[in-house]
């Protein structure tokens, strides 16, 4: 006997039934208590879908897309829900298409340094599948133990090692797409330089607004022969960014160069026990990799530069265990912060790296003015900032102040010639900030590109591009601690 459908879904009753018929009853969720799991991601945004489906094949997706089109219902693709901009939330309700059952690695082609995966493959699982043979999938978001490659493609995700290896788009060579009318199209491929416009490049980072990706061809990257991870400890916060600038000026591109300020590293240390000194003002986590000879020389050069910039101490991880511990500290930073506050707001601004010192001062000043302690954790090497504002979302006024403070930080990033997002995507969190970076003409052109692919606007509506003035909704609820995923 079919369970009673709630009233708010009455108009979608036939759609739900059709989805159940197509996918099986165990692959369709529609009860409110089942849907709450899918109203969050890693951001502060909340939006509940009307139903959640778990397709197994591309053909399932084709049928889902056709049904959605027939019922004029929004479709939102979702991987693991670790996103940080609300990209995978159903802002306007509709069907949330979760890829957890499309998680197969379809092909490992080491001879051509390629892998073909379904979108639901977990980022780290791909690396695990090839690392014994000496390869890896280079994009490494901090959520890589749970985030999916489909989600990485949608948001053009980055990670600490993008400094040397680039973001997701640099590692994707082909996609299989399902368009809103159900047509299946392949763009790009295994071979380089596919003739025609670089549609793969357009699709990566399009946040599910142009098509639903059903298969991804990625590059595999050779694991480096040697890796050295250094922890430079500073007594003055402002010496750390100066050091970063000096490393770049010396012509060294580390594989990663991360900065945690004193407040953040203390939060992390209490949680992870990575060995960050509690009395320090900032640490830099710097990694160099490559040929043994190059790594030795670069690590020595980096150490020298850190010391010249008044590092109190420079530690070198002696083995893989020590190295993993340092990285665990970095990659669990947001989880650690989640233990301290009912909610927190993570920014993703980018500035030219030489502007790090002045930006750090500006963030301090903004924090004081708005009455927040703002933690700073940066991909310092490429100027990608993740300031963390702690707030209690039950206090509406405090939440509004947090958003206002975040807005000021973003505006400053743009004034410095930077960007509102380095790797988290625009989603439904920063669509209102897009006009800071782009003119009306820029945005109108992007909207027309979206409309050319997605004419009825059913694919992930309300994302990436601003809705227009005054249309922005802000809904927010405290994150349960368990949802404070590593970021």
């Amino acid at each position: 006997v079919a369970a009673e459908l709630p009233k708010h879904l009455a108009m979608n009753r036939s759609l739900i039934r059709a989805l159940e018929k197509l996918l099986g009853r165990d692959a369709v969720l529609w009860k409110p208590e089942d849907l709450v799991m899918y109203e969050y991601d890693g951001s502060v945004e909340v939006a509940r879908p009307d139903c959640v489906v778990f397709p197994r094949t591309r053909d399932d997706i084709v049928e889902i897309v056709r049904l959605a089109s027939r019922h004029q219902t929004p479709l939102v693709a979702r991987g693991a829900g670790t996103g940080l901009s609300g990209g995978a939330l159903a802002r306007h309700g509709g069907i949330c298409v979760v890829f957890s059952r499309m998680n197969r690695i379809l092909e490992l082609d080491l001879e051509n340094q390629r892998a073909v995966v379904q979108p639901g493959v977990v980022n780290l699982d791909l690396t695990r599948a090839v690392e014994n043979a000496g390869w890896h999938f280079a994009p490494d978001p901090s959520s890589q133990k749970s985030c999916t490659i489909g989600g990485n493609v949608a948001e053009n995700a980055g990670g600490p090692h993008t400094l040397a290896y680039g973001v997701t788009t640099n590692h994707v060579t082909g996609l299989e797409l399902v368009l809103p009318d159900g047509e299946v199209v392949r763009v790009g491929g295994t071979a380089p330089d596919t003739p025609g416009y670089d549609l793969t490049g357009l699709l990566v980072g399009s946040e599910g607004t142009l098509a639903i990706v059903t298969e991804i061809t990625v590059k595999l990257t050779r694991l480096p022969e040697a890796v050295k991870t250094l922890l430079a400890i500073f007594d003055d916060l402002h010496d750390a960014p100066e050091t970063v600038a000096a490393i770049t000026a010396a012509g060294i591109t580390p594989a990663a160069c991360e900065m945690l300020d004193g407040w953040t590293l203390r939060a992390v240390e209490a949680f992870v026990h990575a060995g960050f000194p509690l009395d320090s003002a900032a640490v830099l986590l710097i990694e160099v990799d490559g040929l043994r000879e190059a790594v030795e020389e670069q690590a020595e050069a980096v150490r020298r530069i850190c010391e010249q910039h008044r590092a109190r101490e420079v530690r070198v991880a002696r083995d893989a265990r020590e190295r993993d511990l340092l990285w665990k500290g970095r990659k669990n930073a947001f989880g650690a912060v989640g233990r301290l506050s009912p909610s927190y707001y993570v920014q993703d601004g980018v500035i030219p790296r030489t502007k790090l010192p002045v930006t750090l001062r500006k963030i301090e000043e903004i924090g004081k003015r708005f009455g927040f302690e703002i933690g700073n954790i940066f991909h310092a090497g490429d100027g990608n900032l993740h300031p963390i504002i702690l707030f209690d979302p039950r206090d509406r006024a405090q939440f509004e102040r947090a958003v206002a403070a975040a807005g000021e930080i973003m505006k400053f990033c743009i004034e410095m010639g930077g960007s509102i997002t380095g790797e988290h995507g625009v989603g439904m969190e920063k669509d209102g900030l897009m006009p800071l970076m782009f003119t009306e003409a820029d945005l109108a052109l992007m909207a027309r590109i979206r409309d050319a692919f997605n004419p009825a606007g059913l694919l992930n509506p309300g994302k990436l591009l601003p809705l227009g003035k005054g249309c922005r909704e802000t809904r927010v609820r405290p994150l349960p601690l368990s949802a404070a995923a590593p970021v």
Partner: protein
Amino acid sequence: MTAPATAALARLGEITGREHFITDSPALAGYEVDGTRPAAAVRPGSAEEVAEIVRFAAAEKLALIACGARTKLGIGAPPARYDVAVDLSRLDRVIAYDPGDLTLGVEPGIGVAKLSAVLAEQGQFLPLAVPYTNRATLGGTLASGVDSPLRQCYGTARDFVLGMEFVTGEGASAKSGGRVVKSVAGYDLHKLMLGALGTLGILTRINFKTFPLPAASRGFLAAFGSLAGALELRRRIVSSPLQPLTLDILSPSLAELFARATPAPPEPQLFARGGAGADETLPLPGPWFPTSDWLLAAGFGGSEKVLQRSADDLARYAAEAGAKSTLVLDDEDRPKVWGRLREAIPLLLEASPAATILKLSLPPANLGPVSEAAAAIAARAGLPCAQLLRGCGVFYLALLPAKAGAGVTASLAAACAEAGKAAEQFGGSATIPWCPRELKPSVSLWWPVRGDLALMKKVKAVMDPHNILAPGRFLGGI
């Protein structure tokens, strides 16, 4: 040639000023594309002027082709219409360069060589060792989609162009991407512009990520009696921890061409250290340069220790792959070979009156069978050929008939069709960037026809709704 009203054209001169508005026939000959001469050429001095020109053209339905140094205008299909050349050579400024941030913003008309000199002063470079370096502009380099041997290490422009500003076919100034090394806001429309032959927009600003120059660099050559040995060495290198800057395989015929031909103009260096290079000559490689074998050429860089380690490993891998001989080239000899490697396309074009160069894109493991198939196809057609195989799977196949003529054109057409099918059979594709104009009607310049053509046409319709930007020049009649 279409003949738009002279009065209407004259308005263009008001936008740029008379001295930058060209209508005399001899000067316009230099703007011909596949034999079509435009009615006028304009040389805008600012992005605003570009936008104004395009708005005017959109209203008057004038077809525009944007150009820089005009070294690669032969790439693409003959234009369906062509009224006005938009010569961007006056837009040649460095707008912003922040060495500490490794970021650069330039106008599209800036010369590759001129820019290299500016960057070299700061110990940096752009990994665009592209053909015609001493004349080519950055805009033309990106729009034409030519690649560089340095892609082995640094990727293509797609990997280090951070953003662009451009004028759409409606004359709207727009942009995408950013100016910092990392930004994921909005659609990456700038990626669409790469290799688009100016069919989607006219570039007005390009933002790049720059790279520190390697401390020093060397060239490594290994000679093999057969392609198989060279491919085996390639396989060993890409599976090793080494990170070569360049990795290419030359057929004996190409090596022979390198040994006797000097490209015009001479192109001495792969890395223009200290801005040197533009006027230096490029001496022929000496008798040490093997010319009867397949050659694998790998460039590598770094500190002295890294160079030594790389050379040792390469020599060992080469021996394991059955190399007949190996050579390590220092700063004295390396430019003689690598300068030619960069200028391989113009060298090949000069080698035959009907030179036809196909670019086959392949999964690299299939380079071997496709190379063999290509050699057999050329032999059957009675066409001399030369091959340049990049380690990443890009394969330039040059068909070099000794003379031009109707019979030769027919042989070339048949060989191109067969080569395209061979590439397709092995999971790849084929384009014909360079060939005699007479050949174009009888070949598919892009092969195979792909399922995403309809999407490309949608993109074109958004970016250039009146179809005035280089109409007909791109694949599928775009």
